[in-house]
């Protein structure tokens, strides 16, 4: 009898097995609802081209479009994940010297005016600081990105040609960044600091500085059926505990910009239903060593400082267990251009802590510093908790090798002027890289004379290699060059990296298709595919 019953039930069991093993059909997105979240901090303005903070890119991204953008659904950004936006198609011509974009037709700005190639020329002439540009940005942080663009042509209203001085494949990635929206030529640049006239999926409903940025659905958006949301509200919540409480109380749907692992765990422990996401960030904590000011002009002292900073202790301490190690480029597998893992393990500060500290003491002794004549160092940092915590740790590490180190906290308004003037000995700094490409990192942070080369490091040989890698079209050959540059930067102690940070976000289960990328924090906030399952 039991056997016969088993035989009778067999088809049912088979059906059940098949049903379980079949892929779960993707949910059909629903339209409606307003996504409530918070930016990193209060945006200083709504104009991404004039700012260097994600706090501006976050709310402004949903209002604008780029020519091209990184696919929000793909975790790792790269040339292969670029999708069309205002450009329908693009192609490299003349041996990667000309980049031609064919633009979408019938796209309108939020104020109803038509979008044309003139808008593209206007935007990028302003950004690259072209002498004949129709407008000038008051502050232009990414001028260097477009240094290689010689001329922008608009043969017709729907074609744009970027003519380059030399081949530069990374230009595509820069144009795909959240920092590269297309601005309307008919709206003065100054107005875009407080209002937003874009072509993007959301229009500005209300902006109250320091309070919120509210966006509403753009019914004329050129991507049919998008966005799914009726709006996005970026509420400025400065205090992290309040952010956590607001998420748990359901006043925010998504939270996590600027969170560390402890914040993430607190949120999750209070509401186990919350969905948590972890990703790399392409933001690193680095040490600025002043190459122009004694005693840091002595390579032995620089090396000693680098060796003294035990990276594993950094991870266990101020990084709260959430950091990855690498050189100047984001480490693999999150990053594309990082040094091989085996090499990273051999970088200064990665080995046995006791042995490295002994080695550091010996180097200092060789440089003339010892117990009777200790090296006096001031470790400068920005007076913000995420800077001060690792800087305090750094002071302790330096004291362990006999350095008479003290911490100097610098007010935010004075920080960059001081760094630009190289008015410090050593400093602890945080650097976010806009896109995971060597051109966006090397030229800005390591090239001789760059405005943001805060260590004053300068090597003509490295500069030459930078240009060489930038125009190398073969990817494998370029990677080889990039690794070579990185290796030399690490060997010379140019801006040693303590660790690469991570992102920790949490959202309610009804939030669907929330994008988070592994190798940049700047390129995901368009939110046209995000929907609420409510």
């Amino acid at each position, binding site marked *: 009898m039991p056997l016969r019953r088993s035989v009778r039930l067999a088809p049912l069991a088979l059906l059940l097995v098949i049903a379980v093993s079949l892929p779960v059909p993707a949910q059909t997105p629903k339209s409606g609802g307003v996504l409530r979240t918070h930016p990193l901090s*209060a945006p*200083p*303005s709504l104009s991404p081209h*004039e*700012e*260097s*903070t994600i706090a*501006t890119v976050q709310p402004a991204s949903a209002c604008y479009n780029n020519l091209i953008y990184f696919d929000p659904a793909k975790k790792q950004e790269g040339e292969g994940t670029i999708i069309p936006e205002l450009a329908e198609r693009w192609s490299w011509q003349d041996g990667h010297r000309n980049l031609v974009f064919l633009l979408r037709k019938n796209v309108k700005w939020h104020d109803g005016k038509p979008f044309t190639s003139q808008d593209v020329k206007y935007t990028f002439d302003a950004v690259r600081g072209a002498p004949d540009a129709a407008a000038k940005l*008051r*502050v*232009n*942080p990414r001028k260097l990105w477009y240094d290689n663009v010689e001329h922008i042509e608009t043969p017709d209203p729907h074609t744009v040609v970027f003519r380059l001085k030399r081949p530069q494949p990374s230009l595509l990635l820069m144009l795909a960044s959240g920092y590269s929206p297309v601005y309307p030529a008919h709206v003065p640049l*100054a107005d875009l*600091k*407080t209002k937003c006239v874009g072509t993007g999926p959301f229009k500005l409903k209300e902006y*109250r*500085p*320091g*309070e*919120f940025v509210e966006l509403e659905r753009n019914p004329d958006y050129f991507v049919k059926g998008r966005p799914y949301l009726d709006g996005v*509200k970026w*509420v*400025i*919540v*400065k*205090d992290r*505990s*309040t952010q956590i*409480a*607001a998420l*748990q*109380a*359901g*006043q*925010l749907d998504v939270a996590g910009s600027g969170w560390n692992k402890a914040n993430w765990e607190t949120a999750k422990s*209070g509401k186990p239903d919350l969905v948590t996401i972890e990703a790399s960030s392409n933001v690193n904590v680095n040490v600025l060593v002043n190459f122009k000011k004694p005693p840091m002009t002595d390579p032995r002292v620089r090396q000693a400082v680098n060796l003294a900073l035990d990276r594993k202790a950094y991870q266990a301490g101020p990084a709260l267990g959430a950091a990855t190690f690498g050189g100047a480029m984001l480490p693999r597998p999150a990053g594309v251009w990082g040094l091989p893992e085996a090499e990273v393990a051999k970088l200064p500060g990665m080995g046995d802590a006791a042995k490295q500290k002994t080695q550091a003491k010996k180097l200092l002794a060789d440089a003339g510093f010892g117990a009777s004549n200790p090296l006096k160092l001031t470790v400068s940092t920005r007076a913000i908790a995420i800077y001060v915590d690792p800087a305090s740790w750094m002071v302790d590490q330096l004291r362990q090798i006999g350095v008479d180190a003290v911490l100097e906290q610098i*007010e*935010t*308004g*004075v*920080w*960059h*002027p001081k*760094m*630009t003037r190289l008015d410090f000995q050593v400093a602890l700094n945080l650097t976010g890289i806009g896109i995971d490409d060597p051109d966006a990192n090397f030229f800005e942070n390591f090239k001789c004379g760059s*405005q*943001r080369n805060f260590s004053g490091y300068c090597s003509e040989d490295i500069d030459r290699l930078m240009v060489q890698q930038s125009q190398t079209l073969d990817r494998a050959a370029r990677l080889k060059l990039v690794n070579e540059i990185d290796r030399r930067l690490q060997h010379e102690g140019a801006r040693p990296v303590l660790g690469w940070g991570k992102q920790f976000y949490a959202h309610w289960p009804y939030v669907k298709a929330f994008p988070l990328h592994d190798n940049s924090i700047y390129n995901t906030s368009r939110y046209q595919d995000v929907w609420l399952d409510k």
Partner: protein
Amino acid sequence: MRGYVAKRLLIALVTLVGMSMVIFSLMRLAPGNIVDVIFESAGYVDQADKRLLERELGVDRPIPVQYARWIGELLQGDLGKSYRYDMRAWTIIKPRLPVTLELAGLALLFSIVLGVPAGVVSAARQNRPIDYVLRVLSLAGLSMPSFWLGMVIILLFVRSLGWMPSVTYVSPFEDLRANLWQFVVPALAVGYRSSALIMRITRSAMLEVMREDYIRTARAKGVWTRLIMRRHALRNAMLPVVTVIGLEFAFLIGGLVVTEQVFNINGIGKLFVDATARGDFNLIQGLVLLIATIFVLVNLVVDLLYGWLDPRIRLR
């Protein structure tokens, strides 16, 4: 009376002018430069662009010239431009003013409703159990920072009810109920501290008055104790209490920084701290001027109340 008010207003004007000079000069003597602040968001400082911008904003001119320009704008009702937000300072301050006034008003209301009766009861029942209980409660109120109390209240609400006051401002004209819910909790947290102070002042003032001859006479005449307390003692004890209430209100306008941060209330205090951290000089000057004006006006109101509470005080 009219002469007195006019004289006080004139003194207030001189005070405000003096204060504006001090704050204007101090801001410019502090390390950092307005243009550096603008470049701060770019992550570097371009020296050539910086010089151009300094000229454009007029900050390359001598401080007295800059001050004269600012005063000129002020006389036309313009507080100047916020360099950080690239907007008129008043446009940023204006929506925050009713928020702070509501929070301060509610907090003050709670503190008076709780503090004055508690002080009277405590004085009337001196050294009895109820007095000890009230004194311990008031000491606790003075010892506990209101932001900490606010955070504990938020955590209790979130953990037990899954609710917390709204993190975005709800206008009473949109939804009165939601508005009250938003402000009641922070107002209680802040009001508790103020009520403790008011309770202690009321108690000591009442005790002092109750030792006066006219109170003893009233008792000897057989006047009912409650009537003595209300009609003779409380009114005469109110002078120091009114002074403290006035000062507390003025403090609440600009001093609720951390509480505003914890409850994410975008009021004047939070704006003040943000503006100071970013070196947004015009915004800071506007806010200081506003808070100073409120201080001066509240003091004037308190002085006028003295005359009403105690007719022996003649305002000349």
